[in-house]
């Protein structure tokens, strides 16, 4: 089924709110130890929303979905992991 405009709007709104939310945490709150992990988790969810909905990956084969979920986990996990180890 073709992507519906209502769905696009919902995903767009979620992306905007997530972006603004994590920016406020990063820039305006005294950055707690868990701040970076939280920011990367939010980034991971945003990337997943774009892949699944805008790029319609949710209609794809399981292999492709798993591949990109793994990529998201590796990127976000690696950025957070290296940050906390530094």
């Amino acid at each position, binding site marked *: *089924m*073709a*992507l*519906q*405009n209502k769905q*696009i*709007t919902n*995903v*767009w709104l979620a*992306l*905007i709110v997530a*972006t*603004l939310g*994590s*920016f406020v945490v*990063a*820039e*305006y709150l005294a*950055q707690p130890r868990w*701040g*970076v992990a939280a*920011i*990367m988790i939010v*980034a991971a969810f*945003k*990337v997943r929303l*774009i*892949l699944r*909905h*805008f*790029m*319609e*990956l949710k*209609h*794809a*084969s399981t292999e*492709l979905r798993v*591949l*990109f979920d793994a*990529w998201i986990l*590796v*990127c*976000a996990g*690696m*950025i957070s992991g*290296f*940050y906390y*180890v*530094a």
Partner: protein
Amino acid sequence: MSPGRSPSDLAVDRAVPVSATPSIWAFIAADCFSFAIFFAVFMSERLGKASLFDESARRLDARLGLLNTLILICSSGLVAAGVAAAQKGDLSEARRWLWRGVIVGGGFGVVKIVEYSSKVLHGLTPLTNDFFMFYYALTGVHFLHYLIGLAVLFVLIRKTRSATIADSNTLLWINSGGIYWHMVDLLWVFLFPMLYLLGGR
């Protein structure tokens, strides 16, 4: 007379499944893999130089980075609407959304040029230190992808003009081109926090 036909005239009232665009997905996978390597190299180089990296990151204007993130998200949404319209067979509608996507997306380039100019004027160049070398390299590679993406969007707009109906070849182009543009967006979604926000305030 509008070149697009009304949806009811067309038999193309279905989405082109992802499996119909295997080539672009192979490309997306390869490109995402490359960027994962870039992220790993940046973060591993940061080990042992965290205070230098963080202090340098704080010299970036996170508000411009935020603005660019919001611009690409909006542009992605507009392009998604264009692709959806094409999938429903309405090429004129698709063209309108794609134009909006291009106009909003163009803002990213403007902000990037303003940002680079400002950095250079303050003496912050790729030669300043390791962080800035990575900053220019990573955002530069992303910017090249962005420019290619803009060119692709223009090609899609032309295809909505030249095609009289949303035939499978036109749809293949529009689906693939849209997917590429969304990739430009999602790569920035990781780049922005990694470069701009990790340093904190």
